[in-house]
């Protein structure tokens, strides 16, 4: 587990980090909490010439309010996300899903921004960001830009971030009165999800007014279960109606095959877990 040789830079500001990335062209990788990048380096699956350690740049962690938006610094660790009172109050789904990430050691080092920028479709948080309609703020040589989550995840381990851009914050709309649930199905506690379903449900008078469903590990990117969402809009918050809607949860997905499951099994799981997640979310508030 010896990584290949690389240069190492530790910028102390976002500007310096961006400059460093720009100079390196395509050959740099950003190091935040290291829980995804370091294994890739040690397994010699990644060969960056330069590792830019942004871990000590001040101001990139913590949670604050900005009107109707919650702003979470990209370097906020999973552990801090779980414990943050603002996250708990306004976007409980994120806290619930983050609690299922790996193990305590990983949660103490790994960061929200790192997890999203790594864009592993089997990771829990990309699908959650998608369900939350989060926005991701990147800083590059031309300044800041905001990328919607649905445009951020481009392909397997690929995002809309340019090589010279640094993800600095995650903006999540505050939600009032939404039920939520993250249904993760994995084989041992530390393992990645075979399939995961993130559900947000707004109820109105015994009906589901609106549902947002993110799918973990059902394709090369995190996905929304759009057909199920459409079927749920206006449906009764009852088991049979939810089950009918969940039956289309795997539409448009392209899950992979590995020793933990065939694509067919994953599609089946997506349907079962969507039903469970939506019912839990609908009964939650």
């Amino acid at each position, binding site marked *: *587990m*010896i990584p*290949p040789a690389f240069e190492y830079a530790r910028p102390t500001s976002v500007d310096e980090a961006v400059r460093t990335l720009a100079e390196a062209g395509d050959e740099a990788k950003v190091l935040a909490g290291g829980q995804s990048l370091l294994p890739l380096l*040690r397994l010699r699956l990644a060969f960056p010439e330069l590792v830019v350690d942004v871990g000590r740049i001040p101001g990139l962690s913590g949670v604050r309010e900005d009107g109707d938006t919650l702003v979470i610094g990209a370097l906020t660790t999973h552990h801090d996300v779980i414990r943050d009172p603002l996250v708990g109050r306004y976007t409980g789904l994120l806290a619930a899903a983050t609690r299922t990430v790996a193990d305590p050691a990983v949660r103490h080092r790994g960061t929200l921004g790192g997890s999203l920028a790594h864009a592993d479709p089997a990771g829990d948080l990309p699908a959650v960001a998608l369900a939350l309609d989060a926005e991701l703020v990147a800083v590059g040589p031309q300044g800041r830009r905001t990328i919607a989550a649905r445009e951020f995840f481009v392909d397997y381990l690929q995002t809309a971030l340019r090589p010279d851009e640094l993800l600095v914050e995650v903006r999540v709309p505050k939600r009032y009165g939404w039920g939520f649930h993250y249904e993760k199905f994995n*084989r*041992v506690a530390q393992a990645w999800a075979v399939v995961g379903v993130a559900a947000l449900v707004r109820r109105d008078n015994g009906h589901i007014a609106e549902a947002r469903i993110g799918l973990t590990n059902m394709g090369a990117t995190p996905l929304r279960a759009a057909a199920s969402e459409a079927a749920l809009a206006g449906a009764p918050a009852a088991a049979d109606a939810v089950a009918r809607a969940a039956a289309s949860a795997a539409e448009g997905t392209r899950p992979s095959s590995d*020793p*933990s499951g065939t694509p067919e099994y994953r599609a089946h799981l997506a349907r079962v877990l969507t039903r469970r997640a939506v019912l839990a979310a609908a009964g939650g508030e």
Partner: protein
Amino acid sequence: MTGATEREVGRARLRKEDARLVTGQTTWTDNIQVTGLLHLAILRSPMAHARVDRVDVSPALERPGVVAAFSGRDLAEGLGSLPCAWPVTEDIVLPDHPPLAVDEVRYAGDPVAVVVARDRYAAADALEAIEVDYTPLPPVLDLEASLAEDAPLVHADKGTNRCYVWPLATGEDYASVKERADVVLKRRYLQQRLIPNAMEPRAVVVTPLPASGEYTVYSATQIPHILRIMLAMVTGVPEHKLRVIAPDVGGGFGSKLQVYGEEAIALTVARRLGRPVKWTESRSEGYLATHHGRGMIQDVEIAATREGKLLGLKVDLLADMGAYLMLVTPGVPILGAFMYPGIYKMDAYDFTCTGVFTTRTPTDAYRGAGRPEATYAIERIMDELAVELDLDPVELRRRNWIRHEEFPYPSVAGLTYDSGNYEAATDKALALFGYDDLRAEQQKRNERGDTVRLGIGVSTYTEMCGLAPSRVLGDLRYGAGGWEAASIRMLPTGKVEVVTGTSPHGQGHVTSWSQIAADVLGVSFDDVEVVHGDTKAAPQGMDTYGSRSLVVGGAAVHQAAVKVVAKARKVAAHLLEASEDDLEFAGGVFSVKGSPEARTTIQEIALATFSSHDLPDGMEPTINAEHVMDPENFSYPHGTHLCAVEVDTETGRTTIRSYVCVDDVGRVVNPLIVEGQVHGGIAQGIAQALYEEAVYDDEGNLVSGTMADYLVPSAVDLPDFVTDRTETPATSNPLGAKGVGEAGTIAATPAVVNAIVDALRPLGVTEVAMPCTPGRVWQALKEASA
């Protein structure tokens, strides 16, 4: 000085070694630093099977920090074939096994070249510079297909992939017994390949003393004594110039009961260069090149009467050897051969094992080694037979097991089970489990058609362990003996050194051996130190595997201590001017019967012997003693494990709801250590049932190559275990102990799978292949309802 008053054996002592093991403030092989140390890195085959056309290590020599690099051909001179110490038949096919491949690679991970550099980073980087040309050859992966006439060969020069055929037919003739049977069931079970996963990866350090030609080999091994002999034979370094040290070793589970190519390579490179070298594997490297376990196809046939009396059992095994025969590769299935009849009486037994070469990592001993496979097969098919006969699975077992009063009992496979009480263990387990209540709940839920089904699994087992009788091992063509040595040194200040030939790698021998010695010698537990794992300090030994350490090595400590007391008694009688027969010995004190003021302690005698000013005439000035133990029989732990599972029929997920075991491991020296062994064993048994499998693709690449894909459960994935014991002493050793290292692993796997099949049987499922992943359970349900 004071002696001990409370009996040590049977006390739940905290382990002496834990302070240093748990904090890591000890010597692991990879921690060893020596001036001038060089680091090895090994280039491995990326293909399952290929001809090696060219290896050019010279570009690696250009890399910074590189001192040397060798191909297989470079080292071939002076580096012999790796040993197989268990050629199970006379006509076994024994292929050459060069530590570094020369002409051909035969599994993904087969070593091809080695780089020696000043640090491990430079060594790892330089591997990428080595040029190798391969011509791909067809992989050999399917155990049945590889035996066909025109199958591609793993070892072309041998003309066959069939390594050996080992038959055993005992009792009456199986075919005629089968004819009088009312019921004959035939089943096929698959034992998936497992990766042992010791916490500490393999590591080796070799320090040469060029002036005298001596070498010290530090290795994370279970077998320093056997390793010394074998390394001498493989490398040509004379045995008396080799010292092997197993420092603290972080687990093995059989994977370090091995003589590895890397150990021989490290010694050879140190010898060539006259410099100390170190090699430590990474986890993913270990997955490729540390031996695997299991890997069998089991065809099992059982014959019985309508009343449920077993008549006979027929077993045909195909056992995956992997690419080469390592230390005991061919013998592992043979260790199971005698155990397929389990705890049951029957008239005929017919067993055949065919060893098969494949282009995969070699297999060898993994916790239980042959016996978990055997227990799985018999316990699974007993459940199937119970269903066929409409009997409760416990009742079917009860009708067939050897009754307590029938011991010692000659098993149909030819062993003599010396003691056991299956009734007591089973009754206790059933009560703890609440068997009848669970059955009632199960019936209710089945009738309701719950989506989450309850299943109950039974596993009764025995095992042959405490690998001992040298004569029997000889009959089985095993290369080594089964004895174990211990010596006891009474130090002049009253402290005690116990020198053992066992080589603990997590078992707590330092604690248990201290307890045994303290009791016999009447000294304090804290006054005993245990010396082990160094061929210079503990020169005689057969090392640690096969649940043998306590029953052979611990018993040797006991017998050596008895000899010390006998010698001390002579000195005491002399000093107290009494006859030996008039002396009493208790709590470390010799006293004269009837005059308790006339007394001396064993510590005083140790000092008196050191000065030797006043010893009995003709007595050698020592009360130290040694003993080599070679029991007449194996030991036979047994027990009953019960598992209740909830199976979610929508997702296929199995959740263990309760797990009860009652084991009989004979007399217990340290209940805490026994408890730990049982917990760990069950965890590994459950892991085979639910989680673990070394998966290969069609090209022979290991797909489950990291811990992200090879799922080892942790404590949070496992239920609370309810453990209890019965205690029926073994008769083959003075401690009455039977061994506990493998019991849990042997018993747990069929308990879990029986429970899963029991849960799903009303839905038409009769078999789920291991590991019973949610995906496989779902698939089985889908097929059953189709």
